[in-house]
């Protein structure tokens, strides 16, 4: 475990050092790129503000992600067993996926107003399609022989869903979740900045950008990065525990 953590750490240290050196050597204008040391200093000074803001952003992104996942499992269970509904749902899901959320997010903010509602709604909506596709594909990936075995003892649909289809879909859902984490953070950050709610890292970032406060902006970039990395780490920890049986999680395949 310590060995495995070593290589990524080296990568991060080298990256930050190069960045710091680059900013100092070429004297980059502060607002364009800030030296990590100065952003980190600022972040440390206002750590309790950033901590409060990060907690709000964590809630917006992770709750939204969780809603999307739960909805996707429910939709997936229905769509995986009904080709007609699946075909009917496909264009809607694809539209949500391909239309850039940033194009219509302002309207949603106006519609849902202040507070967490627009952030949660947007995260849930935009993360939903990839989860639904993963859920449908995963649930369909069950061997026909396994389904036959289940029906040989008259298993109910619910039993097939919980005992076979859901566990089969889990690996794909985890992969999708990893991809969706970045999306969820981006949306939460943006919506927090857009709805003047005075909450969340996005809000700090937006007002810092508007007022040309480089340290304040880069400190918010740093803190959302930390949130993202911690979320990904926890996710892979969870994945390794839940999916220990899955080929991709076995150490001999790493």
């Amino acid at each position, binding site marked *: 475990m310590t060995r495995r953590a070593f290589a990524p750490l080296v990568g991060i240290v080298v990256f930050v050092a190069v960045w710091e050196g680059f900013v100092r050597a070429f004297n980059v204008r502060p607002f364009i790129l800030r030296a990590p040391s100065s952003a980190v200093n600022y972040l440390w000074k206002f750590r309790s503000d950033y901590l409060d803001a990060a907690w709000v952003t964590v809630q917006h992104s992770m709750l939204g992600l969780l809603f999307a996942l739960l909805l996707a499992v429910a939709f997936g269970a229905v769509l995986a067993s009904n080709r007609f509904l699946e075909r009917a749902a496909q264009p809607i899901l694809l539209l949500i996926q391909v239309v850039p959320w940033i194009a219509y997010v302002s309207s949603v903010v106006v519609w849902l107003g202040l507070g967490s509602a627009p952030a949660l709604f947007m995260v849930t909506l935009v993360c939903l399609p990839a989860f639904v596709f993963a859920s449908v594909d995963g649930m369909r990936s069950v061997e026909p022989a396994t389904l036959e075995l289940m*029906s040989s003892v008259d298993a109910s649909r619910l039993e097939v869903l919980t005992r076979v289809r859901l566990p089969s879909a889990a690996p794909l859902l985890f992969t999708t979740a990893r991809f969706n984490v970045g999306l969820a953070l981006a949306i939460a950050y943006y919506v927090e900045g857009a709805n003047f709610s005075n909450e969340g890292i996005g809000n700090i970032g937006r007002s810092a950008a508007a007022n040309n406060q480089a340290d304040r902006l880069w400190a918010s970039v740093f803190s959302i990065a930390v949130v993202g990395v911690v979320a990904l780490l926890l996710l892979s920890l969870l994945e390794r525990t839940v999916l220990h049986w*899955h080929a991709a999680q076995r150490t001999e395949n790493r």
Partner: protein
Amino acid sequence: MSNVALHGLNKSFGDLEVLDNVSLEIESGSFVSFIGPSGCGKTTLVRVVAGLEAASSGTVLVDGSPPAVARSHKRVGLVPQQPGLLPWRTVRANAHLLLDINRAANPPDAANPNTLLREVGLGDFMESYPHELSGGMQQRVALVRALSLHSPLLVMDEPFAALDEITRSEMRLLLNQLVEGRGVTVLFVTHNISEAVALSDRVIVCSPRPARVVADFNVDLPRPRARDIEDDSRFVELCAEARHALHGAMRP
């Protein structure tokens, strides 16, 4: 123990005729093997008996009731060609799978899968996962999974086809030990003539598709059947008889 009766059974998939007027009476407690050319309809036949596929015409009765009734009472134990173990369940949990499903229909005298696992030599692997087992061990778990239902009818579709010859003959011996004295009726599909003779009380030879019964003979070898049964001259005779019937059926 179940008795199975088929009367004038026909089955087609669209225009493809697969079963042609199959009629059979299968005595309860007997071990019956079906052999026939590939694609003739053996799997279809046993799936119809297990209530997994409806016949196009004709009747199937398992203990006097339609297969769907037997299925809903969990009176059919299925052993598929691939063991089909769930990779997220341990050996123990896989062996319990069929008991965990549709619990209301569990028989009061269900066997204890843990005891059965020990009986088939998997006592030390109860907490292992399927990927940690060999093919033969996986197939033994699949056997236990079906036997644990204590169902009076076992339907086995080429359960040993994916195994190597040595493991296969071990499994033959094991299966004989497990079913002898349990009084269970077994329908067993195989491509392997000596496997059919070594295991069965009765061997049924099917024609190329659409499957008809072309030969049906009793295997009068004594039980319990030991490992050296295959050296018996009567065993060799019966295999030859089955082979001739099979080759006769293949000729147009």
